[in-house]
């Protein structure tokens, strides 16, 4: 029996049913009957039974609602009715609905096409709006977000260094109730089956109290956890990780977990609605910021270094303090710091305050995100417009067919309002069904999107809450019903125009120039224009993607495995690290197929960069600066070979470059171009990070930060002379890179099971990270553009085939007077193509204007790309020709005599 207890019909449905039927004898006995039958069916399949129950309930509810309303209405009339009443309204609605359903079932093809095309339009909108809602619109669950301020060290949103954070916190107590900070980091956690990398945030003691985030379980980190570096190993779990690893077990609080080789006490769980400081990036665990250096194995002195910027700061304004006052105080602190540490404060660095409520991720990304979001909404908006134009066009055609019926009803005394109501109910029903189909489509496509494999390091999870919340559903309902009303109103009004005498006369004699024709033609023109705009956008994005794919990154041509490791400084001395790395390099070199193995502290085109200070005699630094800033990394002797970077002049690093020997460097071609216009770089001595360094060789250029960037100068230092414990190992192979990456990982683990692995991947994946956003953008826009083209062709097809059916009589006359079939076909096709031509022209002008706005999102393609602007009209022309020629050809089946007799 207990098993049966769990089987229950959908409770919501049952509750609604009870609400409608009442809990009297009638209602509850019907519900009981249903329940009894449901149990019988549930044995054969629970979901089918639930579906069945819902369907039955719907039928009963509809029937009973209509009946009881009718009863009430009768009663109302006896009481001296004629007044507007809810009952009357619902009754009319029910009647109109039944009528509409019957009408729609009479022409299933029309209904299906209309629902599908609306579904595609509404689905595209719902999906995109969910995305925009999750990324841009939905607020972080912070208390009083309007008094929160994000603090950066530059206008584009550079992070703070920990010492700068401390100084600002100390100097700004007049304006801030508190300044909190967090550093994103990977944490190595021990689990039963090995180790896993978690996305972690190392946070200051006031991080949670300042934002007002409340724990789901236990407590969150507080000031009592912010003590001395390395002194207090406690951790707060992210809600998602708690579920994934511990199955939401509440007894986890107070237990221990191993992070970075040390026991941490779990003190609480963060709430489900707070997933971390960056929207979309899910934080698995929060630790005190004082544990940061230790967690990374002691090799990074983050908490002491003024030059390492990775702290995101957020402040709460004191009551009554304005942004201007806060900025003034931050400026004062900045001036003091600049005086004290001129090196750490180059001119472009400056405290920047941004209201948290106005922020999405960080200012630099927001500047791209907002136009991208706006562009996507415009794109899907156009798709919806095209779908709606189809609906309106179909409805106009139908309305024209029903004119006589409607005219008769008007003549018999039907009120126009009633008829318009009926027609509108039909349209809104259609658009609502389209909306339901659309929401289903949206859910499917969003799930596919979330399941997509992005080339992100480790198990980093990019997750947006794409569930359909009230905002999204309200949006969809408004769009659906709005589309129905808006695009149904014109056809409804037009077809019930009480110009009866005109309609009742046989209007086909006029050659089918129905009054709806002008409006329909306008709709088709609009559709074509909108399609042109979308196709041009898609073309530009495709060309831009193609251009970025063809950029030569300057390295990584061979299949290559990549392993990012950190040899913990608290477990290995510098010499031991060197031995570990050398041994690992040898082991990897022995893997069959491996051609060369090398390592670097920073692989080009990875996230983040290392900046070196460069002084060259005879070349003045930029104004206000004491030195040049260039990107660089520390590499071992074999790195250039492993990465496939060319050596153009001089020599590479070799065994002669010893630890305490003369510092040496390699520079890239761009650096030579900028600093040694004569090309005599090799052998020259420059100062890099204050050390006299000899340039021993020149390498080919590689892209440094972004694939589409203007070439940057670059410096390779010798790793032996500039030791760092965290490196990226590259191994090129003649075999399979994926397999190699796994073998490299196990080789590292075999040497030391607790070695900290940041990432294991292939070069292909590493490079794809750079264009993944472009690929997705292009995919989405191209998809929508073809959807638009498809919908517009349906519209065009409809218009031409309708024209053919209206002009049967005319065509008959023409044919019987000796016109050739082909010339009649072309006459009809030409009518459609005229519309296409005008739509094309308008669309191209609009596209030319809009493409200027897109230029920021494009790479390597002019906004008025000739290939795109010629190709799109050709593609559209061909499709349009087919869409109008196919229905026009139908006239060949018309027999002149039959056509003349037909009316």
């Amino acid at each position, binding site marked *: *029996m207990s098993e*049966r207890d769990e089987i*229950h*019909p959908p409770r919501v449905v*049952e509750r609604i049913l009870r609400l409608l039927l009442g809990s009297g*004898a*009638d209602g*509850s*006995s*019907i*519900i*009981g*009957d249903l*329940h*009894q*039958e449901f*149990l019988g069916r549930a044995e054969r399949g629970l979901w089918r039974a639930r579906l069945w129950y819902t369907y*039955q309930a719907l*039928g*009963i509810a*509809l*029937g*009973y609602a209509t*009946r009881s309303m009718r009863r009430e*209405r*009768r009663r109302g*009339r006896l009481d001296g*009715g*004629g007044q507007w009443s809810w009952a*009357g309204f619902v*009754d*009319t609605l029910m*009647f109109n609905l039944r*009528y509409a359903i*019957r009408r729609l079932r009479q022409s299933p093809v029309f209904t299906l096409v209309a629902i599908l095309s609306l579904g595609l339009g509404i689905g595209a909108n719902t999906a995109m709006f969910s995305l925009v809602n999750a990324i841009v619109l939905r607020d972080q669950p912070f208390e009083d977000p309007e008094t929160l301020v994000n603090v950066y060290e530059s206008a584009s949103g550079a992070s703070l260094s920990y010492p700068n954070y401390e100084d600002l916190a100390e100097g700004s107590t007049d304006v801030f109730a508190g300044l909190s900070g967090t550093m994103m980091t990977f944490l190595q956690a021990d689990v039963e089956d090995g180790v896993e990398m978690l996305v972690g945030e190392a946070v200051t003691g006031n991080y949670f109290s300042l934002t007002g985030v409340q724990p789901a379980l236990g407590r969150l980190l507080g000031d009592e956890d912010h003590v001395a570096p390395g002194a207090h190993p406690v951790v707060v779990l992210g809600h998602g990780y708690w579920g994934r690893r511990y199955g939401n077990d509440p007894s986890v609080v107070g237990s221990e977990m191993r992070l970075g080789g040390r026991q941490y006490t779990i003190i609480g769980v963060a709430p489900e609605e707070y997933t971390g400081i960056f929207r979309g990036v899910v934080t698995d665990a929060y630790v005190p910021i004082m544990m940061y250096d230790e967690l990374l194995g002691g090799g990074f002195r983050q908490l002491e270094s003024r030059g390492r910027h990775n702290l995101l700061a957020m402040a709460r304004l004191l009551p009554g303090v304005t942004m201007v006052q806060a900025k003034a105080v931050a400026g004062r602190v900045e001036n003091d710091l600049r005086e004290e540490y001129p090196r750490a404060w180059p001119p472009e660095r400056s405290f920047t305050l941004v209201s948290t409520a106005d922020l999405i991720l960080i200012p630099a990304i927001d500047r791209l995100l907002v136009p991208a979001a706006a562009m996507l909404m415009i794109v899907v908006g156009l798709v919806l417009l095209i779908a709606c134009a189809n609906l309106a066009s179909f409805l106009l055609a139908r309305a024209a067919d029903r004119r006589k019926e409607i005219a008769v*009803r008007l003549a*018999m*005394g*039907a*009120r126009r*309002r*009633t*008829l318009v109501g009926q027609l509108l109910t039909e349209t809104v029903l259609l658009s609502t069904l389209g909306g339901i189909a659309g929401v289903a489509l949206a859910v499917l496509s969003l799930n596919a999107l979330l399941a997509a494999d992005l080339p992100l390091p480790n198990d980093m999870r990019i997750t947006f809450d794409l569930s359909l919340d009230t905002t999204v559903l309200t949006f969809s309902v408004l769009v659906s019903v709005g589309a129905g009303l808006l695009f149904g109103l014109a056809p409804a009004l037009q077809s019930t125009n009480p110009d009866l005498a005109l309609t009742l006369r046989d209007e086909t004699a006029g050659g089918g120039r129905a009054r709806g024709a002008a409006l329909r033609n306008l709709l088709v023109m609009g559709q074509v224009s909108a399609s042109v705009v979308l196709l041009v956008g898609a073309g530009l994005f495709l060309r831009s993607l193609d251009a970025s794919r063809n950029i030569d990154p300057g390295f990584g041509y061979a299949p290559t495995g990549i392993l990012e490791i950190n040899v913990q400084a608290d477990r290995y001395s510098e010499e031991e690290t060197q031995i570990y790395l050398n041994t690992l390099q040898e082991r990897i070199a022995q893997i069959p197929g491996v051609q060369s193995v090398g390592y670097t502290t920073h692989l080009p085109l990875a996230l983040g960069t290392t900046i070196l200070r460069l002084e060259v005699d005879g070349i003045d630094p930029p104004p206000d600066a004491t030195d040049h800033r260039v990107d660089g990394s520390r590499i071992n002797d074999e790195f250039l070979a492993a990465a496939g970077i060319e050596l153009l002049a001089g020599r590479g690093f070799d065994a002669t470059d010893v630890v305490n020997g003369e510092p040496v460097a390699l520079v890239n071609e761009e650096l030579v171009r900028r600093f040694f216009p004569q090309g005599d770089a090799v052998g020259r001595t420059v100062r890099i990070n204050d050390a006299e360094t000899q340039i021993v060789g020149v390498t080919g250029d590689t892209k440094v930060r972004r694939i589409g960037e203007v070439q940057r100068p670059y410096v390779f230092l010798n790793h032996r002379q500039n030791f760092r414990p965290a490196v990226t190992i590259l191994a090129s192979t003649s075999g399979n890179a994926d397999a190699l990456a796994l073998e490299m990982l196990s080789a590292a683990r075999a040497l030391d099971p607790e070695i900290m692995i940041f990432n294991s991947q292939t070069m292909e994946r590493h490079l794809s990270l750079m264009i993944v956003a472009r690929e997705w953008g292009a995919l989405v826009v191209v998809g929508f553009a073809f959807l638009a083209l498809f919908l517009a062709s349906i519209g065009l097809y409809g218009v031409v085939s309708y024209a053919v059916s209206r002009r049967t009589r005319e065509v008959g006359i023409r044919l019987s007077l000796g016109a050739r079939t082909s010339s009649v076909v072309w006459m009809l096709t030409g009518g459609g193509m005229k519309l296409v031509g005008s739509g094309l022209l308008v669309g191209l002008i609009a596209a030319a204007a809009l493409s200027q706005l897109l230029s920021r999102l494009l790479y390597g393609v002019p906004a008025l790309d000739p290939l795109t602007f010629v190709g799109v009209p050709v593609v559209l022309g061909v499709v349009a020709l087919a869409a109008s020629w196919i229905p026009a050809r139908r006239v060949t089946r018309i027999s002149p005599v039959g056509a003349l007799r037909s009316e």
Partner: protein
Amino acid sequence: MSTHSQDRKGGGQVLPHCGIEYTMYPIRRNCIRGRSMSGNDLLGEFEQLVLLAILQHRDDGYAILIRGAIEEVTDRAISRGALYRTLDRLESKGLVTWELESPTRDRGGNPRKRFDITPAGLDGLRRSRSVVSRLSAGLEDLLEPAQ
């Protein structure tokens, strides 16, 4: 005609909400309804089926069984709504009566109606039957199923 309103402008009979004289109106059914059974009224086909099914299940005249019985004999699906509405109508005409049985677990704690036929219901059935048999008198050759 009692269910119809008088047109505001005076004159003809107009269906409420449809705005059309009802005789012209091709779609709406059940415009005339809600009478009580008078002596001469005959039962509808479906009403007869329901009453006969109740008679067949005199001790257990539950809606589910009534529906099952009709479906089995007629070999067609009976809409649940149609059955409940018909039972409702038969009750308002005084042709059936029901008793409420106490709630059970397998009905989700809901009670059950057990229907029974009233003497008036039995009368109605008899009258309909006799009309049918009088009209079919002498037509046995045609109406008997072929051997």
